[in-house]
């Protein structure tokens, strides 16, 4: 190879860089994306579109994976959300353990749920999730609310409890000893009961 | 030169010990103390980045102190104490360097005493002229007679003389210096004891080998060695990093509403930067040169001493290094029908004409074997002297008997000349001796061969163990000998060397060195002759014997004043110790930081963030006392470690891993633990003063 050729030719390198940009965008963005889109559409259409839940009128009422806000007594309430369950702006509270705001928020919920030293509230009901959209509460947290829900709906405690036990799942099987309940699904199940 | 008495070795050790000044000898300390103040000059300090930063810190606290004094601020005693300790740190560092330098100078002075002026008898066109020794120039010829001082370094070009070199080597036994051989080099300042010699001057006065070495030892022409330079860069980098750490603390303190006092920040900085090694680095290097000098080795540069530690392969001449001088007659192998006494007697007869060490050893062995019945030299006998050409010697007695002894080929030719033949039995004897590493000398009376005398090498006592230690250090030892392959292999086996070069010519050495170097190995060798010069120059460490030729001395990068071939091993140990000391003290210095952090950081922020008191694991009395204790520890560790820096860390010939494990334990782990104890003790002592 001659010396001039050996010399770094920046111009050629720019051309090469440009060609690699185009090639990699085509392959890693376009083709890769399209392949996965088709895979999702073919194999997992529902979850690929966001695990949306439709009611009988084909209206979207939410996503199985996304928490929505519940405030009425006849529904189970989800964990607090730093973004008010806004599913287009996820975030956590980012309060540090030493931040008084975290304590104040917990105190407000404790007052609302009338927790006492003898009947402490499960921690997830006073702790916001990282996304603000955690669809689950622990089974303990659901049981904690069962009496209120049953009373508001005029159902027996046992019936609500039974429903809870049935829908509680351990997310990691034996690796996660604490079962959780999907708040939206259990509330839909409650609504179905009423009918 | 003789090596065969232990007394002699002991004497040499004693001399060396006496020459090495005790570490804190009064006059040296006085000189060093004065020097350490002189060295405070910033442009001198700037050579050493770590200590330069410390000095700047000391200046800054001094300024703060002055301002405090003017404004009558609170906490004056604390600022004063910090200032004093900081200056002490700088002075201790200077003292360490100055002390090492003073020791070098003291050593150099003993050499310098040989530099007295002498009158020289210059020879110009056959005419003699008296001149002062410092008026001599290179290439001029001088004549030196018995009792006179040799005026400058030179080479004997005519004659032979015994010379007293004790002035530079400390060796009392005179040595022979003669023209034309490998012992032609003479050193200025030594005294001719007998005979007269003509010398061609090879160095101007003040420019001689010795002068250059002295200048080097005194630190006049000190250059940082490659490793020292790399370490300085590393230390400067660490210093910068800690400068960042401390520098960032002031603004961060503001976030917490703390106004950190400048003296405290500087105290933290100085504690964190590697002042211990920074202070002792120069002293370590100087001490390495100094140790080499104590071993009577003059190194042409500090770099050479440092490089010695890296040597992978050692080229050693067999004779005088591995074996005791020349070969000795050790055994008789008579042919069938010949008695041992007969053979011994004939061998003696045949050797009377042989003045070589080998011939003399045959006489000696004969006398031991035959006792009173040994033959005596008979007047009238005709001596056939040994020559390199004939390779045999002998004696023709007046009664007609004639004895010959010599190398097998020579004797074969001799008897074949008399129509006798070589019997297979003789051939078998000759081969047998050779196989066992001996040199066969065949003895004949007339045309009858009587048998073979075996000459063997006698290994120097303890040489095997010494090689064992070298191997543990990862060095390969290669024996160089003129012997044939068979003999060389046998001796190599006995001595335990890794390889040998048999039938070595000077070119073989050079070729061997080049080959090893191509494989990335570093080679050291020792030599004396002019024909060694190319190999000495090629080797990474070439040690020339002081007795050797000027060419050899110029080619090598060290000169051994004792002309002791085993000196190489010592030189390597000195080089290794030098590097180990640097590494160990660097490790120690960095490891110290843990304890200092625990002393200073809680103390700095205790007022603003009271809960940090929980980190005061040493239970130091007050924040001020904590900071001062760490700073004082940091300062006094420097003089405490001067002995380690100057004497070097303890060296044992072991494999790399064992050495590292040992040093990591002592200087790494020790470096973490020691300051906890030290700082606590100082804090308790400060508590007694009730000042802080």
């Amino acid at each position, binding site marked *: 190879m001659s010396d001039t050729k050996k010399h770094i030719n920046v111009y050629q390198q720019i051309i090469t860089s440009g060609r690699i940009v185009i090639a990699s965008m085509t392959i890693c963005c376009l083709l890769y994306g399209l392949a996965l889109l088709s895979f999702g559409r073919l194999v997992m259409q529902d979850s690929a579109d966001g695990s949306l839940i439709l009611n009988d009128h084909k209206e979207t009422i939410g996503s199985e994976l996304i928490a929505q806000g519940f405030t009425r007594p006849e529904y189970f309430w989800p964990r607090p959300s730093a973004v008010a369950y806004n599913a287009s702006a996820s975030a956590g509270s980012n309060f540090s353990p030493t931040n008084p705001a975290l304590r104040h928020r917990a105190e407000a919920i404790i007052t609302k749920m009338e927790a006492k030293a003898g009947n402490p509230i499960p921690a997830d009901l006073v702790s916001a999730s990282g996304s603000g959209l955690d669809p689950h509460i622990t089974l303990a947290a659901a049981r904690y609310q069962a009496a209120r829900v049953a009373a508001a709906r005029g159902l027996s405690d046992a019936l609500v409890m039974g429903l809870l036990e049935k829908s509680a799942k351990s997310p990691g099987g034996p690796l996660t000893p604490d079962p959780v309940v999907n708040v939206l699904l259990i509330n839909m199940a409650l609504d179905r009961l009423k009918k | 030169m003789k090596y065969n008495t232990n007394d002699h070795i002991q004497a040499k050790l004693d001399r060396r010990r006496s020459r090495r000044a005790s570490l804190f000898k009064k006059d040296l300390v006085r000189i060093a103390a004065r020097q350490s103040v002189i060295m405070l000059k910033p442009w001198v300090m700037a050579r050493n980045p770590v200590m330069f930063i410390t000095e700047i810190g000391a200046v800054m606290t001094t300024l703060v102190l002055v301002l405090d004094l003017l404004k009558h601020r609170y906490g004056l005693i604390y600022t004063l104490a910090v200032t004093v300790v900081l200056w002490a740190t700088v002075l201790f560092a200077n003292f360490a360097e100055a002390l090492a330098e003073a020791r070098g100078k003291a050593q150099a002075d003993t050499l310098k005493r040989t530099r007295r002026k002498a009158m020289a008898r210059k020879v110009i066109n056959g005419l003699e002229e008296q001149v002062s020794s410092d008026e001599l120039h290179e290439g001029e010829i001088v004549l030196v007679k018995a009792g006179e001082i040799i005026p400058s370094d030179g080479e004997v070009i005519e004659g032979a003389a015994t010379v007293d070199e004790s002035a530079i080597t400390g060796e009392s036994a005179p040595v022979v210096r003669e023209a034309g051989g490998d012992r032609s080099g003479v050193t200025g300042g030594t005294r001719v004891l007998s005979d007269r010699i003509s010398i061609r001057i090879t160095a101007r006065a003040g420019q001689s080998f010795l002068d250059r070495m002295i200048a080097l030892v005194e630190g006049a022409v000190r250059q940082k060695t490659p490793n020292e330079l790399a370490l300085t860069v590393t230390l400067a980098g660490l210093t910068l990093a800690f400068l960042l750490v401390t520098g*960032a603390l002031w603004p961060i303190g503001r976030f917490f509403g703390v106004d950190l006092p400048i003296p405290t920040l500087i105290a933290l900085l100085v504690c964190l930067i590697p002042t211990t090694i920074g202070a002792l680095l120069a002293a370590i290097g100087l001490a390495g040169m100094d140790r080499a000098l104590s071993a009577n080795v003059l190194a042409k540069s500090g770099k050479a001493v440092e490089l010695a530690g890296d040597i992978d392969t050692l080229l050693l001449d067999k004779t005088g290094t591995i074996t005791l001088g020349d070969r000795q007659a050790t055994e008789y192998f008579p042919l069938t029908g010949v008695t041992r006494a007969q053979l011994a007697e004939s061998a003696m007869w045949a050797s009377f004409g042989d003045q070589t060490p080998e011939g003399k050893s045959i006489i000696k062995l004969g006398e031991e074997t035959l006792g009173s019945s040994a033959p005596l030299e008979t007047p009238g006998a005709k001596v056939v002297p040994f020559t390199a050409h004939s390779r045999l010697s002998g004696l023709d007695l007046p009664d007609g008997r004639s004895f010959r002894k010599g190398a097998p080929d020579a004797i074969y030719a001799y008897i074949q000349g008399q129509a006798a033949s070589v019997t297979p039995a003789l051939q078998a004897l000759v081969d047998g001796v050779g196989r066992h590493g001996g040199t066969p000398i065949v003895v004949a009376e007339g045309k009858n061969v009587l048998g073979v005398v075996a000459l063997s090498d006698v290994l120097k006592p303890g040489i095997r163990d010494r090689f064992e230690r070298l191997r543990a250090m990862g060095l390969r030892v290669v024996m160089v000998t003129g012997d044939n392959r068979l003999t060389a292999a046998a001796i190599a086996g006995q001595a335990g060397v890794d390889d040998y070069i048999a039938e070595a010519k000077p070119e073989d050495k050079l070729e061997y060195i080049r080959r090893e170097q191509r494989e990335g190995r570093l080679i050291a060798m020792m030599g004396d002759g002019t024909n060694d010069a190319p190999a000495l120059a090629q080797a990474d460490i070439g040690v020339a014997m002081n007795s050797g030729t000027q060419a050899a001395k110029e080619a090598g990068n060290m000169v051994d004043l004792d002309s002791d071939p085993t000196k190489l091993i010592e030189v390597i140990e000195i080089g290794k110790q030098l590097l180990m000391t640097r590494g160990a003290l660097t490790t120690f210095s960095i490891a110290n930081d843990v304890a200092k952090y625990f002393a200073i950081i809680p103390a700095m922020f205790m007022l603003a963030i009271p809960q940090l008191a929980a980190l005061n694991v040493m239970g130091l009395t007050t924040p001020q006392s904590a900071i001062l204790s760490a700073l004082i520890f940091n300062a006094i560790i420097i003089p405490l470690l001067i002995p380690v820096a100057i004497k070097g860390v303890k060296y044992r010939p072991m494999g790399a891993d064992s050495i590292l494990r040992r040093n990591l334990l002592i200087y790494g782990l020790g470096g973490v633990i020691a300051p906890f104890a030290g700082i606590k003790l100082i804090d308790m002592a400060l508590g007694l003063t009730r000042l802080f």
Partner: protein
Amino acid sequence: MSTLLILLILGAAALLSWPAAKWMTWAMSPPQKGTGFRYSTESVFLRIGGQTAARDQNWKEYTLSLLLFNSFMFIVVFVILSLQQILPLNPDSKGVLEPSLIFHTAASFTSNTNLQHYSGEVSLSYFSQIFGLMWLQFVSAATGIASLAALARGLSGKTNMGNFFSDLMRATFLVLLPMAVLASILLILGGVPMTLLGAATAKTLEGSLQIIARGPVAAFVAIKQLGTNGGGFFSANSAHPFENPSFFTNIIECVCIILIPMAGVWMFGRITGRMRHAVIIFSVMAVLLAGKVALAVYFESAPTAAFAELPVQATGNIEGKELRFGAVAGATWGVLTTATSNGSVNSMHDSFNPLTGLILLAGMWLNITFGGVGVGLINMFLYIIVGVFICGMMVGRTPEYLGRKVETHEMKLALLTLLVHPLFILGGTAVFALTPWGASTVNNPGPHGFTEILYEFSSAAANNGSGFEGLRDNTTPWNVATGIIMLLARFIPIILPLAIAGSLAGRKPAPVTTGTLRTDTFLFGMVILGSVIFIGALLFLPVAVLGPVAEYLAK
């Protein structure tokens, strides 16, 4: 049970890293034969790159090409982000971005940091996400792998370190792409959305409206996890139920974080032909990582100080954590993501207990417990050089690494590189703590506020990308400062180590004797560990004490 989960994640990653490294070495090395799959891919690369991609480069040429291509990456994405309002694939009509945010985002993704001062579902169009950010997640990670391959070639004695362009294509197309396809398929099967439809509008049971942002999430998340990128599709990153819908996707994503960094060590061993040395490096990293995970899980299992004496059932700290991942998932992920310069999160680091936060910070300060794709081992190389230098002297020889003497030039470069980290972290923190730029943007009072600033700079300098997200960091000072730091902290520690390797490669190798410091022993492992702790960690002890430790002691 929780220990089992941690062992499962770390064990799976460690096991998979072995075949992954074999694959990577095969992909990064020139084809052995003149036929076959590897050969034909290489021909395709040559057709794309032309002659420029065929020529062997020394370290200088290699670095130059690397910088040139990375400038391209920066510029292309800068343009895409600036024009997103007029580009296609924007179903939710995302608007114009603020210039300093564009600079910050382009710098962040070019430097493999993925520090996000925007929130994905709020500000970015699908085109920006896919052709801007996701593309950078491929090629910036590939740059890291290429650099490591070049370093390894240099250290095995070659002054020609390969060709950057061909290395980049090998890493992108042969290493990252197949792994990303595999991971995306697993994620789609695990319920992660993959759609180009715009946000869904739901009418909730209680009758209010909920806008549910979605998008081509699976493709994005896979490469985000694999390439130690960490920039999430959504603001909440892998805490978001769409990015990480279940316990099992969480395990997959955890393994993906650490897989290539682990495999990088083996690849280094394979290319240099020093597997035993690689085993020692791997072990040191693994020990540090396991130690950090154990500590973080332990610290995080304490209840949050905020609920002390309130009638709340005692559990570990779950503020900012999702229930579906299990109790220890947050701390485990937190350690992995900060150890590897990934920076994705599955829980909010800002809400961690103080000492857990310290462990995460330590991960970024050291940045070597497997570290970023490719660059993690390059950082470790610096600590090895310094350790070898100091301890090498202690065995009584001029220090040498892999048979080559380490001298002033190498030490100068190594120290300079090591200084970059404290300079940016401590310097940046100092300036922002002192001025309203930082002091007025913190979300929490006291030491924790300081830690938020410290964390942001640590994350930028370590090219990590996670954050104490309470910090209001989308301001011009933050965008400019961290943007510049990310770029410098990315490229200086790639260029200078390559220079060291180039200089070492030019030296004659020395043979190994018993007098040589061996690099494949337990003792050498201790030496590396020591130099990491004493040189890496000591520099950050004061700020560690002032931030997390002070916060911890406060209660």
